[in-house]
C-alpha cells in the first residue's frame, strides 16, 4: 500500500495548524505590502530629487532578485548588525517588502490611469496636495487596482512556502517536518499541495469576479 490513509488523517490537524500560520503570514504580509507599495508609488510620483530615484531603483532591484535570497539576507545578515526578530516576523517583513515592490507598480498604473482632468480640476479648485491625493486621486486609482492586489495576495499565499527555508513553521515546513520524522513524505506533501489548491483556486475565482465588478467605469 503506497498511500497510508490512517497516517494521512492523523497528520491533518498538524497541517491545518501550519496552514493557519501561512494564512497569517499572507494577511499580515499583504497589509504591509499594500501600505508600503502605496508609499513607494507616491514617492516615485512626487519626483523628489535623490529620494524618488533611490526608491525606483530599490523597487527594480527587489523585483529582480529571488525572494529566497532576500529572506536569507534578512535572516542571516541583519542579526550581524544587531537587528534580529523571530523567524515569523522576519518572514512577514521580507515577503511584505518583496511584494511591496510589485504592488508599487500596480498602484503606479492605477495612478496613471486617473484622467488628467482630475488633476487639473483639483488644481483649479486650489485643493491642497494632501486632499488632492487623499480625496481625488487615490480613491479612483485604488478602485481599479483592487483585483490586481487580490492576485498578488494569492501569489503571496503560495510564495510564503519559501519562508520555510528560514525556519518559519508554516504549512510547507510542517509537511516537511512530518515527512522527515516519519520517513513518509507522500501523504504530508500531497495533503499540503491539496490545502494550497483548496484555498488558492476558489480565491482566484473570486478575484476574477472582483475584476469584472471593479472594472474602470469611464
Amino acid at each position, binding site marked *: 500500500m503506497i498511500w497510508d490513509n490512517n497516517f494521512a488523517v492523523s497528520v491533518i490537524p498538524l497541517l491545518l495548524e501550519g496552514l493557519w500560520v501561512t494564512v497569517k503570514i499572507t494577511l499580515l504580509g499583504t497589509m504591509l505590502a499594500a501600505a508600503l507599495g502605496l508609499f513607494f508609488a507616491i514617492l516615485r510620483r512626487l519626483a523628489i530629487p535623490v529620494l524618488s530615484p533611490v526608491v525606483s531603483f530599490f523597487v527594480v532591484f527587489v523585483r*529582480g532578485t*529571488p525572494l529566497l*535570497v532576500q529572506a536569507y539576507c534578512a535572516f542571516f545578515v541583519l542579526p550581524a548588525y544587531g537587528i534580529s526578530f523571530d523567524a515569523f516576523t522576519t518572514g512577514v517583513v521580507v515577503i511584505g517588502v518583496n511584494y511591496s515592490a510589485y504592488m508599487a507598480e500596480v498602484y503606479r498604473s492605477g495612478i496613471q490611469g486617473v484622467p488628467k482632468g482630475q488633476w487639473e480640476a483639483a488644481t483649479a479648485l486650489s485643493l491642497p496636495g494632501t486632499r488632492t491625493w487623499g480625496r481625488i486621486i487615490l480613491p479612483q486609482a485604488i478602485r481599479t487596482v483592487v483585483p490586481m492586489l487580490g492576485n498578488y495576495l494569492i501569489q503571496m499565499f503560495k510564495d510564503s512556502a519559501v519562508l520555510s527555508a528560514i525556519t518559519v513553521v508554516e504549512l*510547507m515546513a510542517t509537511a516537511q517536518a512530518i515527512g522527515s520524522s516519519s520517513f513518509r*513524505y507522500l501523504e504530508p*506533501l*500531497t495533503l*499540503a499541495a491539496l490545502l494550497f489548491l483548496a484555498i488558492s*483556486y476558489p480565491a*482566484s475565482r473570486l478575484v476574477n469576479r472582483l475584476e469584472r465588478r471593479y472594472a474602470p467605469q469611464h
Partner: protein
Amino acid sequence: MSAVIEYAPLLWQGLLTTILVAVLSGALCLVVAFAAGLARLSRHRFISWPAGVFIEVFRGTSLLVQMFWLFFALPFFGIQLHPLTAAVLALGLNEGAYAAEVVRGAIASRAKGQTEACIALGMEPALRLRRIIIPQSIPAMLPPFGNVMVDLLKNTSLVSLVTVADLTFRAQMIRSSTGQTTAIFLTILVLYFLLSYLLTLLTSWLERRYALDRKALVAQRKESKLMKVGAA
C-alpha cells in the same frame, strides 16, 4: 569581501549551474506552455479538460511544494529522480502552466477574421495554426513571456533546497564555512539582479525584432539606412 574573492571559483560554478537550470527549465516551460495552451483551446473536451486541470493544479499550488513532491514523494512510487531532474521538471511544469495561460490568452484574442480567411483559403487546421495564428500571436506573448522567464530565473534559487548546487546553494556553503554573510549574500543578490536585467534586455530586443507593427518596422529600417548613408 575577501571570502568572495577566495571562493570566486565556487560562486562561478554555482552561477553556471543556475544558468543551466534556467535554460533547461526555460526550454521545458516553452514546450509545456504551447502544448497545454493549445490543448486548452481544443474543441474536444477530452483534450482541453486535462490541460485545464494541469494548469490549475500547477498554478494553484506552490512551486516549492511541487519540487519537494517530485523529489521526496515520487520515490514512494519507485521513481527516484536526480535532484537536477526534479528541479528542472518542477520549474518547467510550474512556469509552463503560467505561460500556457499566456499562450491561450494570446491565441484566443487573435482576430476571428484571420481564422475565417484561412478557412476560405482552404487551409488545414494544423497549417492554419502553424503558419498564421501562432506567428501572429507571438508578439502579444513576448512581454508576458519575459515576465515568466524572469520569474523562472528568480525561482531557480529554490533548487538549492533540493540540494542542487546552484548560486544560492554555494552561497550558503560559503556562508557556513567563512561566516562572511554580508559580502557573500550581497554578491549573489547583485549577480541575480544582473541576470534578470539581462533577461529583460533580451525580451525587449525580441519584442522590437518581432513587432507586428510593420509600419513602425519599415520606418525603423529607413532610419537605419539613412544613418548608414549619413555615415558613408
